[in-house]
């Protein structure tokens, strides 16, 4: 998907056959796709996830051929030389597809040719699972195919088509010297590929180092202090190895064993890569404190499940405290700015993620919805990829003109009037909504405010007390002809006060030592649920 300003407007670029079967096609927005297929789920693209899956499959493909190389996600180059005496190339193709299907990749395609480029084009065959190009015939195979297969930019393809070159054969008929000076290097290198000359060769896979260590204590341990001591030793070794290789840990995986029984396994994602053993130990300690071990353990396995290259950045130069100019600048800037990448913030966020989860620390963001519970959303401060980006803030910008005007109105009002409080009262929800009894006024023409609830509430209960409904707003009116269908809920803001006889009882209660925490005057969000046919207090205005 191509990410736009919001998730809903993100466009589908390519889609699988399963998606096409569900009537999802390239060019649709995410909202449109979800309208035709309710099961569609938005997931952030995780490059490392794809790469690790590819490496895992490549390790197993070595069983089919000794030389296996990985390219962009989903593409492998396998050396198929000398298989004539090992069952033939067809058998190799079958074996490779069988291996890939074990990982769930059941729609794999194979192309077999002398050059890597021709094999890659052959793998795109729509009719065959594997396509074998006759030896020494790569150029002949490529000749009738469209130039769209060439790895050149769209602009260059357009220029070639304007010159009447539509197939790879027509492209190679023109001598290379004609392209020199008229097209860029990508076209020139594509010319070599089209002639069947591709230097790309699969190589022997590079053994990737794994960073993990195991300690078998020999006796049962449950003390946090002892555990931390063991973890400290393990981390010091792992971080030393990482530092020597210029790497940083992105994710830790820790497993606890009791004899041979693995009873606890946890993966801890770090919000910033680190090879600092002290910081990593702090993270592990928080994890152990927030989720304690169920039993004592005899062995620990600690692994760096994800790592990345260490990068260095220039530290920020602190302003000279003696300089009056810089002090004034700080004052004007509004004091210490909350820099998301600063060390205290990183440590703080890591603590909260480890103990309370990723969605604990949030910030409010506007959402283009009308109901009070949907008009804003809580967005985690620590994002999926980079918590410093403000993509979330842009992802749900209001598009309703009325809403925008209202926002501007209150912000300008707020700035211009020094004593003006923000308009409206703050709602505090009851979770779940509190069912209440409601007493109605007698029906009269002037009182009819809603055809679904023709009677106005005159009194209601709240936490065991009867309250007189002093004033109540009209229920919501949603524009767009929504009222032709029955709406699910009607929202009322009600000003309620204790009934006089109850107030007297309360005073008597206070005199007798009983203290009532309920106020005399309250503002509540009263809701009539049309489906359940009941009245609820969804929250109080505080």
């Amino acid at each position, binding site marked *: 998907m191509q990410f736009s300003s919001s998730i809903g407007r993100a466009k589908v670029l390519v889609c699988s056959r399963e998606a096409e079967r569900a009537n999802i096609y390239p060019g649709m927005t995410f909202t449109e796709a979800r309208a035709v297929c309710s099961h569609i789920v938005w997931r952030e693209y995780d490059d490392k996830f794809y790469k690790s899956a590819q490496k895992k499959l490549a390790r197993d493909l070595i069983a089919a051929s000794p030389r296996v190389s990985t390219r962009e996600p989903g593409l492998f180059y396998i050396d198929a030389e000398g298989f004539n005496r090992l069952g033939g190339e067809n058998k190799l193709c079958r074996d490779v597809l069988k291996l890939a299907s074990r990982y769930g990749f059941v729609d794999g395609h194979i192309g077999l040719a002398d050059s890597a480029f021709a094999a890659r084009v052959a793998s795109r065959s729509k009719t065959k699972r594997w396509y074998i190009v006759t030896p020494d015939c790569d150029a002949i195979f490529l000749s009738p195919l469209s130039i769209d297969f060439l790895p050149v930019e769209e602009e260059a393809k357009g220029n070639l088509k304007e010159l009447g070159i539509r197939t790879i054969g027509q492209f190679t008929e023109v001598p290379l010297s004609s392209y020199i000076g008229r097209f860029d290097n990508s076209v020139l290198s594509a010319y070599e590929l089209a002639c069947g000359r591709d230097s790309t060769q699969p190589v022997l896979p590079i053994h990737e180092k794994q960073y993990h260590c195991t300690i078998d204590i020999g006796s049962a341990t449950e003390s946090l202090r002892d555990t931390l001591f063991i973890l400290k030793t393990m981390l010091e070794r792992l971080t030393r190895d990482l530092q020597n290789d210029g790497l940083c840990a992105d994710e830790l995986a820790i497993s606890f064993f009791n004899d041979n029984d693995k009873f606890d396994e946890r993966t801890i994602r770090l919000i910033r890569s680190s090879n600092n053993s002290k910081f990593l130990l702090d993270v592990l300690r928080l994890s152990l404190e927030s989720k304690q071990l169920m039993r004592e353990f005899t062995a620990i396995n600690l692994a760096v499940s994800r790592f990345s290259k260490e990068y260095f950045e220039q530290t920020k130069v602190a302003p000279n405290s003696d300089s009056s100019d810089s002090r004034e600048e700080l004052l004007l800037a509004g004091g*210490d700015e909350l820099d998301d990448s600063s060390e205290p913030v990183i440590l703080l966020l890591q603590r909260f993620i480890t103990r309370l989860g990723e969605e604990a620390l949030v910030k409010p963001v506007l959402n283009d919805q009308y109901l009070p519970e949907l*008009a804003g959303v809580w967005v985690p401060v620590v994002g999926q990829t980079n918590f410093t980006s403000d993509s979330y803030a842009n992802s749900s910008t209001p598009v309703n003109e009325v809403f925008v005007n*209202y926002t501007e109105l209150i912000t300008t009002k707020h*700035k211009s009037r*020094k*004593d003006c409080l923000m*308009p409206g009262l703050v709602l505090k929800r009851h979770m779940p909504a509190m069912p209440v009894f409601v007493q109605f006024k007698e029906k009269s023409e002037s009182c009819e405010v809603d055809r679904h609830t023709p009677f106005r509430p005159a009194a209601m209960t709240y936490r065991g007390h009867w309250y007189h409904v002093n004033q109540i707003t*009209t229920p919501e009116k949603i524009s767009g002809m929504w009222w032709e269908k029955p709406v699910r809920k009607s929202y009322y803001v009600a*000003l309620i006060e204790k009934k006089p006889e109850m107030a007297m009882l309360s005073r008597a209660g206070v005199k007798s030592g009983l203290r009532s925490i309920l106020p005399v005057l309250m503002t509540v969000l009263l809701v009539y649920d049309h489906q359940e046919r009941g009245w609820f207090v969804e929250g109080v205005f505080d």
Partner: protein
Amino acid sequence: MVGAVTVANLKKELEHLFPGKWLSGGEVGRTLKTGVEQIDFGRSAGLLKRRVTEWVGNSSSGKTTVLRSICANWCATGLNVVYIDTFDRLLASDWCFLNNAKDEKQGRFWVLRSNINANAAVKRDYVKDSLWACEQLIRSRVFDVVILDLGERNIITSNFYARLQRALERSKATLIVLKDDDSSVQSASWGTNSRLSFNFARPVHFELGLTGHSDDIATIMPTIKGSILRDGMAENIEVSVASYVQNRLFTHPKVPDRSTSKIRARA
């Protein structure tokens, strides 16, 4: 001399407009201005930094509304505010105006939620987690104001108050403890410096809906009255809240008058 006095007055005025940043030296070090005149220039002269302030009122008393306005002032002046919502009672739509992503100089407003519904299967002591988080937030020295909303569970022990106070002394933060409590109690809890209590009172302001009928009420806005208790002395305050018609109460735009264009065309 006259010039110095003028600059001092100007700074005071600017401090009043953009609280918390213009008064230098001891004044700015001790107190945190709120932008609400009755609090800043009354007996309390703002909220004391590195101290605990109790913010109390009944469950529906207007205390959070006043606090939200003050948070907006603080964020507008670049102060960072964090709100610990222990029981997930806040609605995002009420608070999203505090985070203006376009203004880089604006302070951050973050909320710490317990996610009670998401973690229903896991048994957690939410109050304990909130208290732990409160201490961590103060110790991090990242936020200028930490608001701890415990709802009706007023169970901060004196021992924990002392821990919070020790953490505050090493930070720059002000801690506000928000409590749903009976405002008739006229004494601050042990360990707190000042107590601001609020309650709804009359007169109640109404705004009529589009029909103009007396039964068609669009908004209800009671007056918020409060009192500041500090050093054994109390002072009453009264704040009014501007009303607005909620977005969902807007109806269709007027039908365009097509006859005008016809008349013009004939002319």
